[in-house]
């Protein structure tokens, strides 16, 4: 069973609002990098990237992707096969830069924790912020909160947030809330 959280119009409005919040809240754009967390945060970042030029002539310093597979805290506790490492595309020096990490769903916070650890292997950024499309409330395992939130939802343990019709869709048209038979988490990379 599933119900619609955001349809395509609501999603477009949410992305526009996130773009405006980013432009007004992230300080000097020319010193700010935006990184999508692989794989699903990267799709969100691309959507933001394609919209942001509608609102500002000024542009961010750069966009990239960050894979956090090797920084996961559950590698030794998994029964299923390891996740496939994906491409990290970070052709910038992050020293003293502001970095905005982008993910689809903030659930336990473990992805964001792993992303922070991965990011620090590239240098010492001046500031790091987190943007998520969906914030699953009251479900954190680590003390991490997002700075930019598309939509906050209160989700039960046996429900999961699905961004896009299919999780591997490049284009995101809606966000669904699915009821699962088992107690599964959200769709963020490390749960």
């Amino acid at each position, binding site marked *: 069973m599933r119900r619609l959280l955001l349809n395509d119009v609501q999603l477009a409005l949410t992305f526009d609002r996130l773009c405006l919040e980013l432009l007004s809240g992230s300080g000097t754009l020319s010193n700010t990098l935006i990184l999508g967390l692989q794989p699903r945060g990267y799709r969100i970042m691309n959507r933001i990237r394609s919209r942001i030029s509608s609102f500002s002539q000024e542009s961010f310093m750069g966009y990239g992707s960050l*894979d956090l*597979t*090797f*920084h*996961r805290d559950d*590698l*030794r506790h*998994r029964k299923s*096969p*390891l*996740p*496939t*490492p*994906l*491409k*990290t595309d970070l052709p910038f020096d992050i020293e003293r830069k502001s970095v905005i990490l982008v993910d689809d769903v903030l659930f336990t916070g473990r992805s964001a924790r792993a992303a922070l*650890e*991965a990011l*620090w*292997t*590239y*240098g010492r950024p001046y500031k790091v912020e987190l943007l998520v499309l969906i914030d699953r409330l009251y479900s954190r395992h680590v003390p991490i909160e997002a700075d930019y939130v598309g939509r906050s939802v209160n989700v039960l343990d046996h429900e999961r947030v699905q961004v896009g019709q299919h999780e591997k869709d490049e284009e995101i048209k809606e966000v669904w809330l699915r009821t699962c038979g088992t107690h599964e988490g959200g769709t963020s990379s490390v749960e």
Partner: protein
Amino acid sequence: MKVGPHRLSSPHLLGIREMSVRDMELVLETADSFKEVLARPIAKVPSLQGITVANMFFENSTRTRVSFELAEKRLSADVIQFSAQNSSATKGESLLDMVQNIIHMRVDMVVLRHPHPGAVHFLAQKIKAHLINAGDGTHEHPTQALLDAYSLREKWGNLKNRRILILGDVLHSRVALSSILCLRKLGAKVKICAPLFLIPPGIQQLDVEVEPRLEKALSWCEAVNVLRLQHERQRSLVLPSLREYAMYYGLKRAMLEKIGKTILILHPGPINRGIEIETEVADAPQSLILRQVENGVAIRMAVLYLLSSASR
């Protein structure tokens, strides 16, 4: 190309013979990600935190040993270095007793180099830790073969129908067997060139051709893997002289210039300069020798990472 589920089908890396093509592709794919890690300002990830690896070397080694140690440290594993010279092996303790004692100190993985072919296969039947073969006598050296294939794949994209020559002391080389098996499984064509007394009988069963004339063999190939002439294993004294070997089977600049095409050059090291390869050739722009060393760390990181999650 992305390969299927991210897990090796075996809990050990015993040899290329036992490895499936899918497992080999998985190691090569994963090594790509670790090459990116190695290029970071802080080239260290916590993937093997809490895992203890024992490097047990019963033979001398520089590259392989340092490469494994670096790979383990880059993955944040705890590392024990063990060498036979300073161990109770000198008091007559058996290999099995020694390894079992070390594993009972809660060691998760063992990297083993041993002078006896099959030593690692013997241990795999007896112990519970993950085993990685870092060279067993004249038998196999699987991580070397994988890093050779990886270095060529970096240049060519894939090895399908590529023509690769293995030149030199095939009889005493553990690299040769692993390399032949690896290259054939990945779709390359392989020829062997060596004096006939340095070619093991029955080598054609591995689906390779033998070409004893060096110039003809070089004219055929796109890459040549030059093997070290192994003085320490030449028990039968079949080699008349090093000078004669260098004259007929040493890889020389003059011959490569005469052939007039770019041939990629590999060597597993250590190099006997002036014997199996001239210095100008070893250091030539088309030489991948130092690239092989660099790639060796990424390949070993991939193997350790993938095995750490395999069920024992």
